[in-house]
């Protein structure tokens, strides 16, 4: 079972994502943005960071990387893909997920331990959580405010595609407190907070993030 983690120029949490995959029991494989070959991985994580310095728009340049062509194709065939933070932005720019992420409403970078509710535990990345499971994981972003038009938001909610929602105070101005969403098929998930920072008590506030990585192991085995 191999989980690939893409490194774009400016990726920052790629090492953390590989560690989280390994802690969950997978073999972590480093993928390079310029290499379209996925090297036989069963699932892919697009990690956090400031790929290409967020120039133009966050995720806008990475979307055109050679590796993304293959990932977009494989995602269409059902391969699990998780985009965390900047990875979520790349997924939106790639149109694998609807909507966009804009600057936090308070205009500051924010790093905090954020309570969330997992509202959809039927995706490839969330099956190990209970329905409406409340977890606390790290949130850190500059452009973390999820926005989409009303019709899209209604559809996401109507189809149960809101994967996670912020609890307590909305930390970045995201519409309808949305922290993460999925595609129709449930194999592609975009999440603004960082589960990869919450896999061991020594270095993270909780181990609540591990479920994302153990879930995908089961999803791959089941397929």
């Amino acid at each position, binding site marked *: 079972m191999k989980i690939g983690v893409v490194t774009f*120029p400016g990726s920052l949490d790629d*090492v953390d994502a590989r560690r989280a995959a390994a802690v969950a029991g997978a073999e972590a494989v480093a993928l390079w943005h310029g290499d379209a070959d996925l090297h036989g991985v069963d699932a892919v994580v697009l990690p956090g960071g400031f790929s290409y310095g967020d120039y133009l728009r966050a995720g806008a340049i990475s979307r055109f990387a050679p590796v993304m062509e293959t990932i977009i194709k494989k995602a269409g065939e059902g391969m699990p893909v998780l985009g965390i933070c900047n990875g979520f932005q790349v997924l939106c720019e790639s149109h694998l997920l609807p909507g966009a992420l804009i600057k936090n409403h308070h205009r500051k970078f924010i790093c905090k331990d954020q309570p969330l509710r997992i509202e959809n535990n039927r995706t490839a990345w969330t099956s190990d959580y209970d329905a409406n499971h409340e977890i606390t994981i790290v949130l850190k972003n500059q452009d973390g405010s999820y926005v989409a038009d009303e019709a899209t938001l209604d559809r996401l909610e109507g189809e149960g595609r809101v994967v996670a929602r912020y609890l307590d105070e909305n930390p970045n101005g995201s519409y309808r407190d949305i922290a993460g969403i999925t595609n129709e098929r449930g194999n592609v998930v975009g999440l603004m907070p960082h589960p990869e920072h919450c896999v061991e008590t020594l270095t993270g506030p909780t181990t609540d993030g591990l479920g994302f990585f153990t879930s995908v192991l089961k999803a791959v085995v089941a397929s």
Partner: protein
Amino acid sequence: MSPESHADTVSNATNTPEVEQPWAELGLKPDEYQRIRDILDRRPTSCELAMYSVMWSEHCSYKSSKVHLKRFGEIPQETPTGKMLAGIGENAGVIDIGEGYAVTFKVESHNHPSYVEPYQGAATGVGGIVRDIIAMGARPVAVMDPLRFGPLDAPDTKRVLPGIVSGVGGYGNSLGLPNIGGEVVFDPTYLGNPLVNALCIGVMRHEDLHLANATGVGNQMILYGAKTGGDGIGGVSVLASETFAEGGPTKRPAVQVGDPFMEKLLIECTLELFAANVVEGIQDLGGGGLSCATSELASAGDGGMRVSLDKVPLRDASLSPEEILMSESQERMMACVTPENVEAFLKICAKWDVQADVIGEVTDTGRLEIDWHGERVVDVLPETVAHEGPVYNRPYARPDWQDALQADGAEKLPRASSGAELRDTLLRLVASPNLCDKSWVTDQYDRYVLGNSVLSQPEDSGMIRVDETSGLGVAVSTDCNGRFAKLDPYTGAKLALAESYRNVATTGARPAAVTDCLNFGSPEDSGVMWQFTEAIRGLVDGCIELGIPVTGGNVSFYNQTGETPILPTPVVGVLGVIDDVTRRTPIGFTAEMEGHQLYLLGETEEELSGSEWANVIHGHLGGRPPAVDLEAEKQLADILINASRDGLIDAAHDVSDGGVAQTLVESALRGGVGARVWAPDGLDPFLFLFAESAGRAVVAVPRTEEVRFTDMCTARRFPHAKIGVITGDTLDVQDQFEVPLTELRTAWTATLPSVLN
């Protein structure tokens, strides 16, 4: 007309000795300019003048501090964990931490640029120190930022602080480096002169250590990273070495502009170059730009160097050769590479989309020769530029106001006595700018990235896991109480060292080495110079007593606006080593610790001068700072480290600004559980709560370990007193007052947001 036709060549300089040169505008004094003429036996070319002016500036040459900094060499160059692998004079000091690992760390100032342009000044401060760490061969693993501002409610603080914090975060977050500590301090003397110090920690294997020299005739000099632009020209000489005059012209163009994305590429690219073993010597381009890199690399090497300045890739094609030599454009490095490795070097740079150009080579002439379109514009002995600048033995004298200041102790000021008064004092202190919650600042920094942050602010020190298998780690704290240093700079510097040392030991790590950032006013003021020499004397004596060396650091002078210098601020960073980070000791009282016994280690004296109580309640600064006993600090550290290793304590927090009261409040709010406490026998409740005697810590001992713990303290004859128990959701000072944690939290957290949001 092509630009080269204007070049002031060496032969032109020889033939036109009478040409008037703008040495004064470049910050040189008349005798310094004459000295350059004497060295060269002719007038300098305009390029040479640019180089000398940059490299002989206070910032680059340490001309006012050199004679005093030499004293750090008197400290034995050994750490408790092993030998020092590189010391003062290198880009950053390196120490052995065992298991084949070495750690490098250094703190530097970026004060003046951050006042002129807060965001870019602070951002490039982070960028500069990170490049120093990479240049040693290490992977940067964390940053910390000690910051100091004018009064919180001053209008200019509202301009400067958000920009600086956002710059520190914007750059460090984009590099993927966790920010794990630092300080945020307010004092009126920093108004108009904020202090932005930046510290970086790097980790490498012993064999990866690289030094800054250019050796081996025929080896190629490669400039790589960002293109050179017009930003930061004269930044060093004009900005860092002059006092801001009231109403003077704005100096914005001299501040550099940072691109953290390029720096991130530079980090990964450089580490891959090291791994491929294609680098002979390396130096980052910081203050002084190419002038500094070429002259320092050449003078540290065994030959000379020839550089073609027209091969430097430019962002702005109209730059003159003088400007290219002085430009402080960020995110650039210079490496010395053997001819057979050049292709491999350039290939790795191409993989990371990093521009790299061969601009020169190592020669056997012993001279630094720089050409501009085939014409020689610089021909100097590199050491005359890099190391033989002027050295000043500036006059220093104890200021005549020092006696009166020391005679005006805070111990005579009226104190709270009833329970209600003590409660009110506590709440006022907790909400004061220096003691309040700093999350408004630290929440703008990524403390989690890289996944090795074991402790970060507001813990006593930041702690990073170095090896995931063995658990080997390092802890770093930075501290300085400038108020103490004003009252007595010798003792104040020792107290800064003691506090930083204690903060490292409190988390369970053994202190091993020191870096310092010495922030002072104008060295041309004999009183300031006396403060500086006294602080160095304190640090040298202190390091010898504690048995830890100074591995490097930085001096920042001219921190004053008009006649008023800042508080003398010798910021001390101590790095410690911990064998197993799972044994770290945090500060918080948590639910699992309910019922744990609280002990106060160390003696509490009637020491209130320079305290936060005197500052907040009386607006008073006078008297003598708390006494410092470094032998006792060593004993305390041993107890804290052994107790951590043996599992005798579950929480520990040092006692410093604000006294035991602040220590208890921070521990309770951190873990969410309160405490019932009492003053030990014979100690006045007010002094128990608010005195700032050094050498103390509060520890939480499980009942099952209480006998072993107290036996250990008794065996070492170290003062220890039971002062309470962890329990409930209030801070209950028996027979005096009780405050709910919710009330404390509201007071503690409201201060910064209420002013800055």
